[in-house]
């Protein structure tokens, strides 16, 4: 769900988070309006609010694993993990993790890529949250969910700062209030993407 659809609807923090994101047109290629969260990281109050919103949501959900997707998931995940007393597990591109790994391939527009996780990082039965800065196609998040489920963990939710509205569940072409899912898992998003200010 989008935070604005929950009791946080009137939360003034959301507007500031939205406005702190910078749009870079035509990056990495023409036609793409890149959502740049580095400007959010430069604003201490807004960065703290972003982390706090996730922490508030997950601190009482019995989460023992925060899995962050390389590389921008690393910027948000550890702070959340530290605040809720969970471990942080980096999910990385191939050949970055030095120990024994399991891999999950996922599709790109052209070709495939792979996400890896260290063997032994997560135990069966643990409850996990997957964090990334943004969800677009959902390919990386899906791969992340699979990695965690393959080792017997339960993915309680996926969380991103930004998400495309396509993840809202539709029932008979009407958006179901408050429900975003990815591969059947709940998905919690703070804001929608910004358009370019003209």
């Amino acid at each position, binding site marked *: 769900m989008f935070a604005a659809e929950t009791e946080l609807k009137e939360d003034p923090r959301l507007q500031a988070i939205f406005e702190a994101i910078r749009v870079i047109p035509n990056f990495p290629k023409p036609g793409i309006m890149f959502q740049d969260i580095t400007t959010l990281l430069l604003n201490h109050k807004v960065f703290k609010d972003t982390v706090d919103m996730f922490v508030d949501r997950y601190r009482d959900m019995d989460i023992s694993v925060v899995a962050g997707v390389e590389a921008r998931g690393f*910027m948000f995940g550890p702070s959340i993990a530290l605040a809720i*007393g969970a471990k942080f597990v980096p999910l990385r591109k191939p050949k970055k993790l*030095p120990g024994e790994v399991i891999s999950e391939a996922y599709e790109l527009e052209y070709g495939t890529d792979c996400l890896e996780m260290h063997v032994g*990082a997560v135990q069966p039965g643990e409850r996990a949250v997957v964090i990334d800065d943004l969800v677009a196609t959902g390919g990386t998040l899906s791969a992340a969910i699979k990695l965690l489920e393959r080792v017997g963990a339960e993915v309680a939710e996926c969380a991103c700062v930004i998400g495309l509205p396509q993840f809202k569940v539709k029932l008979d072409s009407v958006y179901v209030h408050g429900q975003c899912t990815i591969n059947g898992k709940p998905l919690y998003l703070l804001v929608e993407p910004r358009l370019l200010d003209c």
Partner: protein
Amino acid sequence: MNALTGNSLKISRVNIVSKKFQRHSHSGNSVTLKSPNTSVNFQPIRAAITGAADSGETHSTVLPTESARDQLRSDMAASPDVKDGRIAGISAAIRVIPDFPKPGILFQDITTLLLDPKAFKDTIDLFVERYKDKNISVVAGIEARGFIFGPPIALAIGAKFVPMRKPNKLPGEVISEEYSLEYGTDKMEMHVGAVQAGERALVIDDLIATGGTLCAAISLLERVGVHVVECACVIELEYLKDGGGAAIRGEESAAEGGRRVGTG
């Protein structure tokens, strides 16, 4: 002018290796380290390692004078951080992976530290305690493991977080700094406008080996008028030569335990 003058890099000894390095300082603030041709001698202590996260970097160091080494050694012994009980837990939580990314390298894997909430929290707390009253407004983290430690520190001390990235990752206008690898070069980038002249900065990475990436980060920040107060790493690979070590001359590198790089 010494390289990295005005920056203090206090390096704490978590793993110790014995290695011979020659180091030269260049004009300005960059330090280029050339690779030694001699074979290296290792005196393993505990989980002695040579692991280099920046394994591709070339390095050479000029050993400092005897008096500088003595000063460093006594400074190290006097540092209160050395006795902090949290250090042992942090050190024990780091896993060594042999022959990664290539044979002969003992890689310092911090992912096991991240799986230990107490040790991870202690790591961050040690840095926060050190920096919270130093008027630091910028924490610059080096891709990618610097992104794991930097933001929690930045949030706790009220600073902004600035990612220092490999080429073509940052979407906006950037400035770049090239640095040497063992073979060839690499580049580090920072967004234009992320930091302002006069700001005080901390540079964070998980590990310092040769210092090449840290130097590139320092250069980027200083080019836009930022004062780099200190570089901080969880792990330092201390290079000892027959009981001596290579000090980054005139600097201290802060890491767990706050111990300086000692020579001798």
